[in-house]
């Protein structure tokens, strides 16, 4: 009985693989597409993914149905693991963000960025160093002086996330020391600053936008290589003489082992997506810089960002080796 069931299962599995493997490029795409979001609804990754899907639908860029699903958990570990296990399935898409690089470095995941087929980097998302407007820190140099004179505390989401990497890169280039306070979520991060518990926070622009507009918080510097369209008055760290830049890849990847024709099809399709006015409006609204990189160039970018990330985490002692 057991033997027969195992046999049936094996037959089913081999039949499924046999059907899945050869996807004739000329027929592509002919099936339903599943867009997996490795984070919860409402967050940055979710908003980006849904914007891409809406544009695909609005301009009929994808002929079939598109199903969007959130598989959150473990800072992206669960969702990305799910997609990476679909190797060879050309109907799976997912969006990257900082955790796509960071989570495999700090957690024991069964995937890394290299287990995916890179399609394109659609935008990069950098961080702001933010202080209270009523604090003594008028600009970045005063902040550095204060750090040299005494003790400063900088808070950010998570212990080994992009916020900590940004803070560490800044401290290294300014040759200062600081106390890093990891805080779980965006909301408590902002109140840690407004309540005067910490001196500064490293935050995603969207987390502090309302407070910046109202003038209760002030951004001292931006971690991208160029100023943000949303906060044109905030200088970059580089402009101020601190030689580093760090931003997160907001891109699209697919499972491993795909026909190169499928990769090309999606590179061409997403090139159309980023040219739409809707995508440009999304970039402006979220203060992101859009400098798309495609295919193998995106793979190289992921490799470099991961290496920079890893080196910083090793240096600050967040991970070994």
């Amino acid at each position: 009985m057991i033997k027969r069931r195992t046999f049936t299962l094996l037959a089913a599995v081999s039949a499924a693989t046999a059907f899945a493997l050869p996807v004739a490029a000329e027929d592509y795409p002919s099936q339903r597409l599943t867009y997996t979001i490795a984070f919860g609804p409402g967050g940055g990754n979710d908003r980006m993914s849904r914007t891409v899907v809406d544009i695909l639908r609005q301009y009929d860029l994808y002929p079939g149905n598109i199903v969007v699903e959130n598989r959150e958990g473990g800072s992206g570990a669960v969702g990305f693991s799910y997609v990476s296990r679909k190797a060879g399935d050309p109907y799976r898409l997912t969006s990257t963000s900082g955790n796509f690089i960071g989570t495999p470095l700090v957690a024991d995941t069964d995937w890394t960025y290299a287990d995916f087929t890179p399609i394109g980097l659609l935008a990069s998302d950098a961080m702001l160093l933010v202080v209270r407007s009523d604090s003594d820190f008028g600009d970045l140099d005063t902040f550095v002086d204060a750090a040299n004179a005494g003790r400063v505390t900088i808070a950010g989401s998570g212990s080994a996330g992009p916020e900590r990497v940004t803070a560490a890169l800044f401290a290294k280039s300014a040759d200062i020391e600081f106390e890093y306070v990891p805080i779980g979520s965006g909301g408590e991060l902002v109140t840690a600053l407004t309540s005067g518990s910490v001196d500064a926070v490293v935050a995603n622009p969207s987390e502090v936008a309302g407070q910046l507009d109202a003038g209760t918080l002030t951004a001292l510097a931006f971690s991208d290589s160029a100023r943000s369209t949303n906060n044109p008055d905030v200088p970059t760290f580089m402009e101020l003489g601190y030689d580093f830049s760090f931003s997160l890849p907001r891109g699209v990847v697919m499972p491993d082992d795909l026909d190169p024709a499928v990769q090309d099809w999606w590179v061409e399709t997403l090139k159309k997506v980023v040219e739409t006015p809707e995508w440009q409006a999304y970039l402006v609204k979220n203060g992101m810089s859009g400098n798309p990189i495609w295919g193998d160039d995106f793979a190289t970018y992921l490799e470099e960002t991961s290496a920079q990330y890893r080196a910083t985490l090793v240096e600050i002692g967040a991970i070994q080796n």
Partner: protein
Amino acid sequence: MLAEIASNLSLGLSIAASPEGFLFLVIGAFLGMVVGLFPGFGPAAGIAVLIPMTFGLQPTIAIIMLAGIYYGSMYGGTITSILINTPGESATVASTIDGYPLAKKGRAGPALVMQAIASFFGGTIGVILITALAPSLANFAASFGPSEYFLIIAVGLLMLTTMMGDNKFKGFISALIGFAIGTIGVDVMSGQQRYTFGSPELIGGVYFVAVAIGLFGIGELLHCIFNGQHRQPATRLRISFRDKEFWPSRQDYYESRFTFWRGSAIGFVAGVLPGSGATLGSIIGYSVEKKIAKDPEKFGMGEMRGLVAPEAANNAASAGAMVPLLSLGIPGSGATAVLLGAFLMWGLQPGPLLIVNDPEFVWGLIASMYLGNMILIAMSIFAIPLFVKFLDIPYVNVVPVIVLLCVIGAFAINASIIETWILVLSGLVGFAMKSYGYSPAATVLALVLGGMAEETFLQTYIISQGTMSLFWERPVSLVLSILLLMIIAVPVTLSLMNRAKGATEPG
């Protein structure tokens, strides 16, 4: 100031009470109640799924509808707590403690009516307070840092002891089990994984919903079957609007007349603070009610006040949570985080300037919450006979339905099978706890609050360089610290004094 409030509200009503606004408000409130009925499929998922439906609408109308789902789910969520002892959310855990015994006593009708009234009362008081106090409350929420959060959570955790029933020791063990489960997952402070055993599904920790549904729903089910309840014929409750047994008795109203006020006030303050607002509010609301009652031994046996207090509190808290969301752009829970996402999608940037830049939106939303609560209470009372009918079904036929609901609820969390296993496991644990007099409520609430307590304590530790000086240097912290010490010291001193008295008096 009153004139200003009146003009703001009439501006809001002109939007919320417009035919289109009203229609979508009714739809949102109805969907919210339905969403709340399914354990596990909470308001966060409900709002997220329905966001695409609102794309054709005007932004304010869309948000009015989505907000209706949010607070409507608070009405629906308690119904399963009362009828099948299965809270779908951490905010309705406290409502099971007296709600379910009430249903078992055959008073499901009055319990459901009373929870609808308490919800309406709490929700409306909450909106009135928002209308009057929103700007100053925002400053209050913004002054809470890690040290204040730790202390308020510590107060909540101490309050847990009052829920632990007669045996403090067993309650203590139950809470410790919750803390232990809470340590699974990535440690936010060090980034290290704890007790995940290489499973990617556990990196994010054990989500309390699966545990809650298992401990309460499946645990209760196993317990009933173990006691042979499925062999008994169903007690037919012929209940309609005309029956006297359907409505709460005069005594119910009389005894809980102050409970409504206390629950709403406590819940609202807790809701304004981002974090586990509604959960903390319902625990503290329940505990305070039990503490000041002259007959605390009735609590847990099906006492109406024990249901009214957490219900008024969690609904007032869901209104209170709109304060940091609108005025600071800070979401306090999963559901408000999704709402924030929806705001941003419509180009509305919550923050101190929102009320200045988009007054129609802010006041339209607030006015819609007054109307929404009225719609919800009417809808609830109308639907209650339907829900009570559920109890007419012989238990043996109810079992598969409950199991199905629980499994779907657990699976729906992340569409992954691991939550279903957690459900099965916690079901067995829940059965054991129920059989031996442990408290599943303490376990679930410790699971929700334990992680936050640990994080905020360690943040305070880092910020104050290991001296903990923040606990008395910051004014709000100092007040909370004193309160905390009093909660610990007063009962101890009283019992010591009683003992001393007993020792001096002969016999």
